[in-house]
Structures are given as C-alpha cells and as structure tokens.
C-alpha cells in the first residue's frame, strides 16, 4: 500500500508550489494512472512517490515504510530491491547489450551472477519478444524494443512498486499498446503496484484507479471495478 499524506512540493526562490497537500491511499497491487494537463504536477508526484525526489512537506509511506527515514545507503538498497522505473526516454546504457542492460540493477549486489536472476532476465526478454536480441547492443534496437528492454530492466529485481513516467510518450500506437500490456501484466500477474503518468485517455482508462491532478491538487479520483477491467 502507498499512503500519501499531505504531500506538498515547492521549487525555487521565491517558492512556487506545484503540489498542494496531496492525500491518497493506493492499495497494494493496484494499476494506477496519474493524469492531468502539462504542469499539473503528475511527474513531480511520481518522482516523490518513487523516492527520487523529496516532498517539501508531508510524507509518503511505501508498504508502511517512510523512505525519508532511511539512511542514504538504506534508501538506495530500498530503491534497488523494491522500486522499478520506466521513463519516457528509455535511458539504456548504450555500451551494453539488451541482456546486460536488463541485469544492470542486479549488479549492485552481484546478483547478476545468480543463475535464477539471469534466467528471470531472459524470461522477461522472451516474454517481451526480445529473446533473439538479448545479445545485441542496445543502440541497435528500435525505439519500441529499447523501451521494452527498459521495462524488463525495471522488473528484473521483481520490485513491489513500478513507476512509469509517460512510458508510451515516444512510441507509435502499436509499440505503445505492447508497452501498456506489459505494465498491466506486471500488476495483474506479478502483483506489483504500478503507477504510470499518461496523457493518453485510452491508456488511462485501463487503470484500476485514476488520479487526476489539476494545478497541483487532486481534481478527481476514479476507481474502476476489477470486474470491468479489460482482460490482460
């Protein structure tokens, strides 16, 4: 469960407040879309929830734990073990192959040598239809393939939380659909709590929970019955 308690975020001097006391509770395993116009604070909220940024005031609890109370080393370990990121730009390491990119988070604690972890990485690539390209340098892959490698990388540590910032923003509709299906699978089959920022109404409509922001405040939270959710 993710508990968001009165999260406010201000930037600059004099301070400009982009998030005004956000409160929400996101159940474990939810598939959540954060929507809103540009500048509404969607990405800022996502980065705070994903521990990459800190709230000016308020707190976030991830599975009951407050990341701000962790030491720097504990926070990095927490991020490594529990959080996966997918960005609009894939941010793959260009020197590495697809498989090496996927296994990169596992290198932090030398888990890339673990045969189970390697097998899991390969199974992700296979699932994402990239098995034959596992040993190709990432720059030789297409945009859609690179984004799928980035998602596999985000999932390789089997994180409890997966955050995606406009993951389909740079993709055509076919690749966008593939990516959305993979994110849904992560939530529905693997039980991860997935939060994604999107401008696409169709993609937003597939979420269990939609948090719509307007001018840094929650404008609307809409829930959808699991029964009506589209089949994965």
């Amino acid at each position, binding site marked *: 469960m993710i508990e968001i308690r009165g999260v406010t975020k201000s930037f600059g001097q004099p301070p400009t407040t982009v998030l005004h006391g956000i409160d929400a509770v996101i159940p474990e395993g939810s598939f959540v879309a954060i929507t809103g116009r540009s500048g509404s604070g969607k990405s800022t909220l996502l*980065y705070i929830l994903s521990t990459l940024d800190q709230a000016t005031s308020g707190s976030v609890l991830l599975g009951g734990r407050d990341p701000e109370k962790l030491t*720097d*080393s504990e926070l990095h370990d*927490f*991020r490594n073990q529990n959080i996966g990121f997918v960005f609009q*730009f894939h*941010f793959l*390491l260009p020197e590495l192959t697809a498989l090496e990119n996927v296994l*990169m988070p596992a290198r*932090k604690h030398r888990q890339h040598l673990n045969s189970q972890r390697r097998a899991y990485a390969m199974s992700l690539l296979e699932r994402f239809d990239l098995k034959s390209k596992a040993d190709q340098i990432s720059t030789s892959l297409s945009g859609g393939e690179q984004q799928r490698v980035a998602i596999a990388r985000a999932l390789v540590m089997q994180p409890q939380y997966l955050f995606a910032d406009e993951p389909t923003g740079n993709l055509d509709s076919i690749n966008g659909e593939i990516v959305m299906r993979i994110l849904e699978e992560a939530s529905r089959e693997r039980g991860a709590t997935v939060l994604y920022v999107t401008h696409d109404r169709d993609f937003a409509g597939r979420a269990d929970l939609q948090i719509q922001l307007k001018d840094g405040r929650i404008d609307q939270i809409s829930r959808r019955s699991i029964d009506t959710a589209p089949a994965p």
Partner: protein
Amino acid sequence: MFFLAFRHLVSRRQQTLFTLLGVALGTSVLIAFTSVMTGFQDFLIDQLVNNDAHVRIQVDDRPVDPTVLKQALWSSMGQVVWVNRPTSALTVNSIRNPLGWFEVLNQDSRVYAYAPQLSAQVLYSKGGIHQGGRLTGIKPELQVKVTNILSYVTQGDFRALAHGGRRIVIGEGLAQRLGVVLGDNVLVGTGTGSSVPMKIAALVKTGVRTIDDGMGFSLLNDVQQIAGRPGQVTDIAIKLFDVTQAQDFAHQYAALSAERVASWDELNANILSVFGMQNLIRGFISVAIMLVASFGIYNILNILVNQKRKEIGILRSMGFTAADVQRLFLIQGTVLGGLGGLLGLFLGYLMGFLFSLIRVEGMVTASMVSFSAWIYLMGFVVAFGSALFSSYFPARAAARFRPIEIIRSGE
C-alpha cells in the same frame, strides 16, 4: 562498477588508446630520464666512494681568521694593527703524529684498512720535455686496499712498486705527453734538488683527465726522499667496512684532532651539491611531464561525465549510490593510469636500454644507465597517482549530480 567502467573504456577505443599512449609516453620519458640521471649520479658516486678513501685525514690548511686570533690573544685591546697579517700557511705541512693515528686506527673496529700517503708537487722530465704534476708516495699493499687503483691499470704491474728500485706508476696521459712507454725511465724532481730517475712499472687510466695527465705513484719512502721530507705523511686514506658510517667516523675524529678529518661526501660536497640541483630539475621536469598526462585523463573523463549524465541519472534510480558513480569514473582513471603506467615501464626500459647502447668517446655509457627497480616503481606510482588524482575531480562531479535533475531535464 568495474564491468561498466571497462565497457566505457572499450566503447571509446580511440580516446582510450590516445589517453593510454599519453600516460605511457609520459611515464616512459620520466623513467628514461631518471634512469640516465640516476645512472650517471650512481656511477659518479660509485667512483667517488670506491676509487678513493671513505675518510681522509689531511693536514689542516684552514685559513687563520685575524678576528678570531685577536679575540683569543688580545681581547682587551681596542684595535690590533697587524705588521704581517696571519695567513693559512702552516709551518708544519704534514700530519703531526702519524704513528699515533696508526695506533688509533688499528684499534678502531670500523676501519677496514688505512694507507699513509705523502703528496708532493713534482716535475716529470724525459729528454727535453717537462711536465708538472703530483707524485703520491704510497705503500702499495695498503693502497690497493683503500682505493680501486688496480682496476685502472692498463699496462704493467702496480704491485711491482713494492719491489723497490725506484719504480713509478703514471697516468697514460702523462706518459703520452712525456713520450714514454712501460719500462722507460722518467726523471722526477721537486725543483729544489736534483731529479731522480724512476722506472715506469705500470700505466693507469682512470678517465679523469686531471689524474691521468699529471699523476704518479711511487713508494712512500722514495717520495719522502725526493721531497726531502723523511718520515712525513700528508694524508691517511681510510676505508671503512661500512661507507654509511663515514660521516660519523669523520666527525668523531675531527673533534679530537688538529688535522682535518673529512668523509668522502664532505670532500666532494661540490659534486654532490650539483647532484642536488640535478635532482631538483628532474623533479620539476617529472611533474611537468606527468601534469600533461594527467590533463589528458582529466579532460577525457570530464567530457565523459558530461556525456553520461543521463546514464548517471538512471544508475542512481536503480539504487546505485553517489559513491558507486564516483567509483565508476575513478576506476576508468586508474585503469588508464595503471595500464598506461605499465606500458610506460616497458617503453621506459626500452629507451633506457637504447641509451645504454650509445657509445660516447671516453665514457662507459652502459654502466651510466640505471635499471634500478625503484625507478620503475616510482614511475608506476607517479603515473597511477597522477591518474587517480586527475580522475578524482570529474568523478566527484559525477557523484554530485542529483538524479532527479538529470531525469527531469530529459537530457
């Protein structure tokens, strides 16, 4: 982080190769330069230490200071007018009690051997040719223990001096000037009395022109006779078991005696001070060479850090710490420094070896290039240290990037 650092280096082969070559060349020049300089210095020090005595007892010819004399004798008087100013010329120009010295030296366990000598200015003559020089009276069996003179004998038998019969050993240069060869006679005189014929028993060549062109050795008794100074010695040359004790040994006896007792390094202080200056210049040049190589590493890593901002951001988002990111770039710097340093050691050895092959007239070049392990160790440590130092700043800058700023900027 080794894995990623290695991939960074391999993916930029050309940059990596040129940076490696920069470090390697800097290191090799540093090593070759130090090898030649150190080899030259070691050679000269070896000559100074082994060719002559470690400690020498000599007549003290320090100039007399009139103010010290006035203070000691007429301190109550306001002004002293000298009729004849005091000079350094001593009435006694030989060691006052050589037998006393011999007794003391015989009892000192640090002394390996000692050799009394009498040195005199003489005139060598053959036919109508005259050549000024010095003649040193020695005891051959003792002289060979305190100096390396035997290794410089090019013709004849140095030890034959001991057979008596007015024999002499002279430098090759002097022999050439006089037009004499081994077995010939030369006339030796002090200029005040009659000259004495002496038979050439051996020729020596030390490589030092002032010695080879004017130096002669003969039996101590013969020289005392020629110089009209029976029983006198002007020097006692001492060889110690341990050359590093020379200074302490000299200071101990200097404090107790009226003679000048000086160690080899005090006697050659001017040469050693030149070495000091050489070492200083070598230090400056070494720093300059390695600075250039270091700038290469700094520059390349600085560019790389800025090129890799987004990768740094994503690494941080995966849970890699600032220290991990710093390590990523430090590893690259140290790999460049380490590999460049190792390549530099090899190139430096090669350069030193080539230098040692160069033959210069009158010089023993091979022995003047040092291949001492410490030079190579120093070269590697300097290369590695410079690389570590120059990569520290870009690495620290990389570690200071805030991942959120990089990700937000979408670079």
